[in-house]
């Protein structure tokens, strides 16, 4: 069977060069980089090399890079660490309603501790109003946290503009760059970012490793307490192989950014046009201007069909994608991103994300464009919402979950 992986925003395969670079660090060079002896020395320089590779992708100094276990840890650390370090200055945080749960849940946890959080809304295209952002800043504001690009829609936020606003008001600025890094240029210095978070497994490094850019001089409380690793900024024995992999992945990402993503963009545009042209009642989620979305991401709602069943039917044809349906996330509500954009509840349950990568081919896109229409049609035929005359009950009061036997 064909296996067509269009879920690169969820995770990516480890690149061959990355795995090759990692392999020696499991058995031959297995030492603890904190050790004084040969086994430690062999690996500590590998970590410093990786630090340089990450720094180069982000355009910062290696000393400003902290290795972590994942993107979520970076978001937790940046936000909680800032809140604690700056609580004498104020208790107000500004973020957006469309952040990743690693940011949103962290902010919600801080609300319970007495912090006030402004969740900026977005328009129907999923975009922020920068005037609203600036107006939300108060003398109590200690942090602005806005993602560089959204994982569901691919929308790219105007990070340089936000950086300028943050600088003007002397407010610290954190950006979750997990989806942006490696797909579009991420220059933390040019954008006036104070903290930026990336995750290895979104860019061809393994799962379980991430990094944070922490601008020199930025005061932050520890998140992971313990040993003196990472110059006292992150305790825990270094994930040496993962860090080496992250470094190589960053180097490759930087080297291949332009060529890879011109190619990926063209495949994505083909998929986008193909779907919108051949299947009726499909809604594009995200900004209609494709330049304002990541070059690899397409999010559409196939009206009348719940996302998980669509994914499972795609899967029977070997096509891997993802959905904003509640049923695929373990939560009861569909995607908060669709909700924030004011997407109708059925369309939110129907939202489907195709996220491409440089390994995809034109033939794969042709195959997908061929297979999709009959699947969509078959599921629509099965749906009580399709060609329905009576109105659909939409209010949650009527939700029949309570009726279960």
């Amino acid at each position, binding site marked *: 069977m064909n296996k067509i992986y269009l879920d690169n925003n969820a995770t990516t395969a480890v690149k061959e060069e990355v795995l090759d670079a990692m392999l020696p660090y499991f058995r031959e060079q297995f030492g603890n980089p904190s050790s004084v002896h040969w086994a430690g020395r062999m690996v500590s320089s590998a970590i410093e090399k990786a630090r340089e590779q990450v720094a180069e992708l982000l355009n910062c100094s290696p000393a400003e890079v902290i290795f972590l276990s994942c993107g979520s840890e970076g978001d937790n650390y940046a936000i909680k660490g800032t809140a604690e370090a700056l609580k004498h200055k104020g208790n107000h945080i500004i973020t957006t309603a469309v952040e990743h749960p690693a940011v949103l849940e962290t902010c919600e946890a801080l609300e319970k501790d007495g912090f006030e959080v402004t969740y900026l809304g977005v328009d129907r295209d999923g975009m922020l109003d920068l005037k609203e952002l600036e107006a939300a800043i108060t003398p109590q504001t200690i942090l602005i946290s806005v993602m560089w690009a959204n994982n569901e829609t691919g929308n790219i936020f105007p990070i340089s503009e936000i950086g300028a606003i943050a600088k003007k008001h002397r407010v610290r600025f954190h950006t979750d760059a997990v989806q942006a890094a490696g797909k579009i240029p991420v220059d933390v210095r040019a954008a006036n970012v104070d903290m930026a978070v990336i995750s290895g497994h979104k860019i061809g490094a393994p799962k379980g490793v991430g990094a944070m850019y922490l601008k020199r001089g930025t005061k932050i409380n520890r998140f992971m307490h313990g040993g003196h690793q990472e110059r006292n900024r992150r305790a825990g024995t270094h994930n040496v192989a993962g860090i080496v992999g992250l470094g190589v992945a960053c180097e490759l990402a930087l080297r291949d950014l332009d060529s890879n993503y011109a190619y990926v963009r063209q495949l994505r545009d083909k998929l986008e046009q193909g779907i919108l042209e051949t299947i009726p009642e499909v809604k594009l989620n995200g900004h209609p201007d494709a330049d304002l979305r990541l070059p690899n991401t397409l999010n559409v709602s196939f009206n*009348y*069909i*719940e*996302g*998980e*069943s669509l994914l*499972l*039917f795609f899967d*029977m044809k070997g096509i891997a994608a993802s959905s904003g*349906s*509640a*049923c*695929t996330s*373990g939560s*009861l*509500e*569909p995607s908060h991103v669709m909700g924030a954009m004011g997407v109708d*509840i*059925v369309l939110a*349950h129907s939202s489907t994300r195709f996220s491409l990568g440089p390994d995809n081919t034109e033939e794969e896109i042709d195959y997908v464009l061929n297979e999709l229409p009959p699947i969509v049609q078959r599921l629509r*035929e*099965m*749906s*009580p*919402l399709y060609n329905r005359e009576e109105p*659909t*009950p*939409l*209010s*949650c009061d*009527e*939700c*029949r*979950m309570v*009726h*279960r*036997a």
Partner: protein
Amino acid sequence: MYTEKVMDHFSNPRNVGEIANANGVGEVGNASCGDIMKIYLKVEGDVIQDVKFKTFGCGAAIATSSMVTELAIGKTIDEALVLTNQAVAEALDGLPPAKMHCSNLAADALHEAIKDYREKHPA
């Protein structure tokens, strides 16, 4: 995560569709939960002669809908009323814990359809 039986019923759902001259129709669920199940019945002399469904929902929702139609067909109304969502899940060799709620309402939809039939055909 799904059992083979779930996958079978999901990928080849039995009894999909509507019954033109159904004499009992039931619908449960809600768009905001992401699951709506509609059951059409053809009851003759207290026996369910035909049953069809339409479902908007996840794999579990479709599989349970399909399974409930198989379990109901040929049964008397009273027998069908004893069918529980739990029994449907068991007939599918179980459902993932996260799917035991809104996606597992097919028996409820069947009961609603029977209720509708009874209201229209008082004994």
